[in-house]
């Protein structure tokens, strides 16, 4: 065991979410057969799926949003007709403008409101946050400012989806497949801050479009993603109309090339992958009509993917040197299938994959090998993951990557053997650390370099969070036992000494959570 502790750290930290505390024996198991420990999860593709009681399908959730929006509208109209004379009275005039802005912002940036709604306790009450019952920021928020408001269906769903994902990450053995889910989900990201539909769909999108294909084929994942209502909404394709389509002619509206561009730039070929502005416009035309049924359900069940032939640009299109005959939905599906097996796609995916798991500057030989695997297996993502685990480079490269805030929080929860029953603490912490769940700032997702996550402010905030955890949980934990679970004899002498010499168990736990052994992967 002694000799393999370092390999066990690679298995658990580079590929997984870190060892679980308690009686898991993760570190010992990983040390006895590091590669086998990682690969074991790949043999259980159904284990990637996520089903939990209460989690609903995308159409069901879309319908819930439509119903909720109708309710809000009715309530607003009822209030307007009921008490027009009273309206100015409840608020001082000075407050009216910001209020209006806040409301308008709701669909624009729900994240801001999410943060606002779940604000951490008032700084003056920081003592309260140290106590066990102050541990839940959500519990403290209403007391600090406004009267408690029940969560609406969108917030409830988002939290339920988040909780299911967090709990899964806490319970899996190594966490390699969950790390793959996070990788692909970030590769094909949407942002919950786009609006209410995106927020309620964020979790379902990952369950429906990402998870079934994480150990399947890239082309299938690509199709599932680009046809998912959440992606069509996020990148505006439901608004894009073929200029010569019947709908385009009637409504005098036309193309929106947002989704088409990001498919090529971010999802498949990559910048410099050999496409032109003409190709972007062509693909935009090809995928006109890819949309989801609205609240009236004229095209299908509200909130489900539909192909709207009325909005589809008629005629053949030339894309990346090939002509795609008009064929409705099939035209776009054929185009996506070709893009998925384009050599640039293989190269782009292999590079990004190695950068995520191994090093900011991915070893070229490893990238080349994974690219070849991708090409030869026609984008078999399980083969891609297996090739990564079987490469010597992935085991020899020093642990220079920095855990993302999400990785850090999950690793911490696992080590402390705490399965959350409320996602609030995690969601707040992720917001603070600059990685709000399912809500990156742009369609390129969260950054994936050590520099991005080792920035001064981010690191200071991690320390504040670790310190809070230490304060709350430290009294009941032997930090040296925890170090055994976390790193055993792979821990550095300095880390061990720092923990041994800490002035309290609370401090020792904070220092352990912040040690290079827990931060690097």
């Amino acid at each position: 065991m002694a000799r393999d502790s370092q390999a066990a750290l690679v298995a658990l930290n580079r590929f997984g979410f870190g060892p679980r505390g308690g009686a898991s024996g993760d570190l010992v198991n990983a040390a006895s057969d590091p590669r086998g420990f990682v690969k074991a999860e790949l043999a259980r593709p159904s284990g990637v799926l996520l089903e939990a009681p209460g989690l609903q399908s995308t159409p069901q959730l879309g319908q819930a949003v439509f119903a909720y929006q109708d309710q809000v509208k009715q309530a607003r109209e009822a209030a307007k007709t009921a008490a027009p004379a009273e309206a100015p009275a409840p608020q001082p005039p000075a407050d009216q403008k910001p209020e209006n802005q806040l409301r308008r912002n709701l669909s624009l940036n729900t994240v801001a409101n999410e943060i606002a709604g779940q604000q951490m306790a008032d700084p003056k009450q920081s003592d309260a946050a140290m106590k066990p019952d102050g541990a839940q920021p959500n519990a403290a928020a209403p007391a600090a400012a406004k009267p408690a408001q029940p969560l609406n269906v969108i917030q409830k769903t988002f939290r339920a989806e988040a909780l299911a994902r967090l709990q899964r990450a806490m319970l899996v053995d190594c966490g390699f497949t969950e790390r793959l889910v996070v990788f692909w989900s970030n590769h094909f990201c949407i942002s919950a801050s786009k609006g209410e539909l995106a927020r309620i769909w964020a979790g379902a999108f990952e369950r429906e479009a990402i998870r079934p294909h994480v150990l399947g084929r890239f082309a299938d994942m690509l199709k599932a993603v680009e046809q998912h209502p959440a992606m069509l909404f996020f990148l505006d394709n439901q608004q894009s109309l073929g200029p010569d389509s019947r709908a385009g002619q009637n409504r005098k509206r036309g193309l929106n090339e947002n989704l088409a561009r990001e498919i090529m730039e971010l999802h498949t070929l990559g910048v410099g992958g050999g496409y032109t502005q003409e190709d972007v416009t062509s693909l935009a035309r090809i995928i006109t009509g890819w949309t989801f049924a609205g609240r009236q359900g004229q095209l299908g069940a509200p909130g489900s993917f539909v192909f709207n032939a009325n909005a589809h640009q008629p005629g053949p299109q030339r894309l990346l040197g090939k002509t795609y005959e008009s064929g409705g939905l099939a035209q776009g599906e054929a185009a996506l299938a070709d893009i998925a097996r384009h050599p640039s796609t293989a190269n782009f995916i292999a590079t990004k994959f190695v950068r995520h798991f191994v090093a900011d500057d991915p070893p070229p030989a490893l990238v080349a090998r994974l690219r070849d695997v991708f090409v030869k297996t026609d984008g078999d993502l399980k083969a891609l993951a297996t090739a990564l685990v079987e490469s010597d480079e992935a085991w020899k490269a020093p642990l220079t990557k920095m855990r993302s805030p999400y990785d850090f929080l999950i690793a911490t929860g696992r080590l402390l053997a705490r399965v959350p029953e409320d996602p609030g603490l995690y969601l707040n912490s992720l917001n603070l650390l600059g990685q709000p769940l399912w809500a990156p700032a742009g369609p390129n997702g969260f950054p994936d370099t050590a520099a991005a996550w080792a920035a001064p402010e981010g690191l200071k905030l991690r320390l504040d969070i670790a310190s809070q955890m230490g304060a709350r949980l430290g009294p009941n934990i032997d930090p040296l036992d925890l170090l055994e679970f976390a790193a055993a004899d792979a821990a550095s002498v300095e880390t061990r000494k720092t923990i041994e010499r800490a002035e309290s168990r609370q401090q020792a736990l904070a220092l352990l959570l912040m040690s290079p052994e827990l931060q690097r992967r």
Partner: protein
Amino acid sequence: MIDCVENRLLTSRRGLLLAGASFAAWAYLPKFARAADGRDPRLVVVILRGALDGLATVAPIGDPDYAGLHGSIALAANGAHPALMLDAFFGLHPSMPEFARMYRAQHAAVVHAVSTPYRDRSHFDGQDVLESGYAGPGRVQSGWLNRALEALPRGERVSSGLAVGPTTPLVLRGNAPTVGWAPVALPQADEDTAMRLVDLYRHRDPALASALTQGLQLEKAASGDDMKPKPGNQVAQMRQVARGAAKLMAADDGPRIAALAFDGWDTHANEGGPVGRLAFLLGGLDGALAEFESGLGDRWRDTVVLVATEFGRTARINGTDGTDHGTGTIALLAGGAVKGGRVISDWPGLKPANLYEARDLKPTTDLRSVIKGVLQGQFGLSDQVLAQTVFPDSAGARPMKGLVA
């Protein structure tokens, strides 16, 4: 020996931290020296990520083709929400009254039909070019603002760059020491824990040691009476970030140079005209500029705030009342040091033949010339340094003269 020196530093720094929040505590900062002419220049670079629609922000209302191209979202000189006319030709978006006021006081200027040398339409490559200062994408090790810092004489006017936000923007990344700050609402780790961790990092992970040290110092310096974030919307957050940065920069020994980024300008659909989504964001930007003005107080006199974006958007609105990725756009300058009250533009016109690739506002001014003009005016960097180090291989883009009063 080394151990001894480190311990002393550690002890003295800890003592200072415990004594209170002050930038003066920064041992590693060069001593600030006021120049003989009494000027104390400051520069804030604001990056708008997502590509700002320059034609919607400073609208060429006098151009006969503008209204047709920008269609339903075009600004007009009259109507319910008239543009704030900057001259007979250009109108400012009505949600930017603060900038208009600064403009009238000759403390704000617009550069129109501007772009970086980047000519494709990827946000991320475009941002790399904008921030790295290289002519093409793929150079992401350092940014032009950091290299400008490096070229300044140490221990003189500019001490260190300030990166506002949870991560350092590329424009300020590089060899010159920078520090970062972002608003927080969290009980803080105590100093003893922090110092022990810094000590561990020093032995095991120098990169983390350096990052954490900077994070600790900045938080100290920025925390004050009203620096805790309050529940609020995006606009409030933009103002809050600006207020905190201004507070740090107003200190006698605070950083002279800061960079921050605002996201969300990628208005593909339902961009809105005088009111709507873009209007909302521009209101936030306008508020942030006002926060810098009030927060910097007397220092505003010597300040330039430069607002830039990676590229512009299509001249013609798309099929969804928005605009797609384009080329030419605007840069904004605000601050007491700006020779303002002008829209600087070699206007290319919006006739179909004059558009870049028949779709975008054609860039007639290299953004690097504007930035060079600001850096030269504020900090006296030479043509040669600007053309070789700050913006490598950019001799063709001459510094624009007379931007700084």
